[in-house]
């Protein structure tokens, strides 16, 4: 670490407090809000169908829930990996210091995982799980029998009440998902020492960028699943998701604009430093990747796709391109907040730089591993709990 700091010291510009040479919240802390944002966004996609009765997106309902779960399971990894003393991580739940915004993390996380996602998935899948438990053999059958939690009742009454529970949990889940991620925004927005972070808008900006990234991820996974399974995509579903992506993008863009407008119009102490931060230090990651490639281009593409001049086959490619750019752009946003806020000195007179090590703790490699892990978990979940809308074997029998 210390070797990197010597290099960083060579590139420090202006005057920074000597303790500010080191960027303390590394790329892992940028990855963390990115992942929770995907969780919240994916859950919101799922609730579109459940709460807002957007029937068109039904084919992605279960896929969105499984995506949320896969990413949620990995959400604490970057945090724990980043701690100086990971072995003391549980203290945050055992002896929380309640005046700290961060102390709630364990509870918010546990609530969302245990009280929302797992319950919703269990009751939504219960009927299928029972059927699988009765038909599957071997290890898979054993897993299903465990997942039934011993309840094999799938009569009309029981499935009806399952459905009711899922609806209630989704209604609780939507504000929970918003809270899970808005809360992360608050952790940054409440740091008054940092002019680039400190803003009451931060939780809302985080939330809308979360929706943007979550919808984009579910849409991309849905399109990819069509390829992998060799199945025609549901056009209505794909287009509707893309529309919601566009709407949340427009909200996200206007919020970001309000934030910047406020900064530049009020011109408080430190504005000169922020100007340099935006136009010089973060030129590539902020202006080029986040704003242009990650926001304006996808919005333009999505509007173009809406005009109806493109066939679905072309639209599909537009969506693939737009969602990929979105996912990159939202990660850039997390980067610009987390890393950007630490490049600027609290003296407002100078800047440090951030060097991302390729290997070791808090490195690019670790970051990539944590980023790929949810996709592997998702693949396993999809195998175990197929989220597809096909009629099951037993349903076919019923239909005949």
């Amino acid at each position, binding site marked *: 670490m210390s070797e990197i700091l010597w290099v960083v010291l060579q590139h420090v510009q202006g005057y920074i407090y*000597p303790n500010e040479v080191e960027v303390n919240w590394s790329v892992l802390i940028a990855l963390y809000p990115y992942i929770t944002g995907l969780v919240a966004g994916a859950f919101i996609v799922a609730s579109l169908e459940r709460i807002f009765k957007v029937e068109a997106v039904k084919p992605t309902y279960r896929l969105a829930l499984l995506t949320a779960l896969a990413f949620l399971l990995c959400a604490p990894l970057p945090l724990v990996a980043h701690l100086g003393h990971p072995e003391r991580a549980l203290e945050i739940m055992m002896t929380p210091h309640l*005046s700290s915004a961060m102390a709630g993390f364990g509870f918010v996380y546990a609530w969302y995982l245990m009280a929302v996602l797992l319950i919703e998935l269990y009751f939504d899948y219960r009927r299928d799980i029972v059927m699988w438990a009765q038909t599957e053999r071997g290890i898979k059958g054993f897993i299903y029998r465990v997942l039934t939690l011993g309840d094999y009742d799938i009569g009309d009454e029981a499935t009806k009440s399952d459905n009711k529970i899922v609806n209630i949990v989704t209604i609780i889940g939507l504000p929970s998902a918003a809270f899970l991620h808005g809360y992360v925004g608050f952790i940054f927005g409440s740091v008054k020492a*940092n002019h680039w972070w400190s803003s009451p808008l931060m939780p809302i900006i985080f939330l809308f960028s979360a929706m943007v990234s979550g919808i984009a991820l579910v849409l991309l996974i849905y399109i990819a699943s069509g390829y992998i399974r060799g199945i025609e995509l549901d056009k209505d579903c794909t287009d509707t998701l893309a529309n919601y992506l566009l709407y949340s993008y427009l909200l996200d863009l206007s919020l970001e604009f309000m934030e910047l407008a406020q900064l530049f119009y009020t011109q408080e102490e430190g504005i000169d430093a922020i100007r340099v931060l935006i136009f010089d230090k973060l030129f590539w990651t902020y202006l080029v990747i986040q704003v242009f490639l990650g926001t304006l281009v996808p919005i333009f593409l999505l509007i173009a796709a809406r005009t109806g001049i493109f066939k679905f086959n072309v639209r599909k490619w537009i969506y693939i391109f737009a969602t990929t750019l979105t996912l990159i752009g939202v990660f850039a946003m997390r980067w610009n907040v987390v890393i950007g806020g630490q490049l600027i000195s609290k003296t407002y007179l100078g800047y440090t730089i951030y060097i991302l090590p390729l290997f070791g703790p808090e490195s690019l490699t670790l970051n990539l591993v944590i980023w790929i892990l949810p996709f592997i978990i998702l693949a396993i979940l999809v195998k175990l709990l197929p989220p597809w809308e096909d009629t099951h074997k037993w349903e076919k029998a019923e239909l005949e």
Partner: protein
Amino acid sequence: MVSRRKLLMAIAGLAGFASLRKAVKAQEPTENYDWTKHYYSFVVDTRKCIGCGRCVRACKLENEVPLEPFYFRTWVERWVWLKNEKGPKVDSPNGGFDGFPPKYDERVISKSYFVPKLCNHCDRPPCVQVCPVGATYKTKDGVVLVDEKYCIGCRYCIQACPYGARYLYPRDGPRVTRRNTADKCTWCYHRITRGYKPACVEVCPVGARKFGDLMDPDDEVRKIIETERVQVLKPALGTLPKVYYLGIDSEVR
């Protein structure tokens, strides 16, 4: 002229070193110490500071602060205003550890002075507020401390401190139990609870750093705060610092 200055500095250095031999390495206060009977405060008189950096060196020695130029419990800044130039020029080479080699042509300087910095031991400390496990806390005698056996190393406090007073003790630092935890100035808690001054105050050859007890009616620091026009850093943030400065411009932050 220069040789006399050097001689004086050498004498002061020896005196400082001799006083450091009293250094008490244990971090815990003595048993018969009553922390409700004291309330500490700190005054920095920038009009006296000569930028010798002795305080920075004493602090690093006393408190096992790593010697690399990225970790400081206290440091000294040089603030310079040049003629025909807007805004101050600030630097702090190696935190002032090696003193300050001349940098500007004296003829173009309109004013300049040194500003020693350290933890402000705020009365409303954002670092204490944000610690998720309560490893950093305020003592009854007005000092903000970190429990190295408890800190999880999340570094939220480092982000929350507006003064850059905290750093993460490196994983190869000399004090094993403190590795990977947040570290900062303690006003030499192990010394002050035994009646000594903090190391930086002890070695300051010109009395630019003053440490005192506000509960003592005859205390020098208390008298200065009561009678002089003192300033704190970044007052707008509402942190209520307890390090008071004499003779700084409002731009100093």
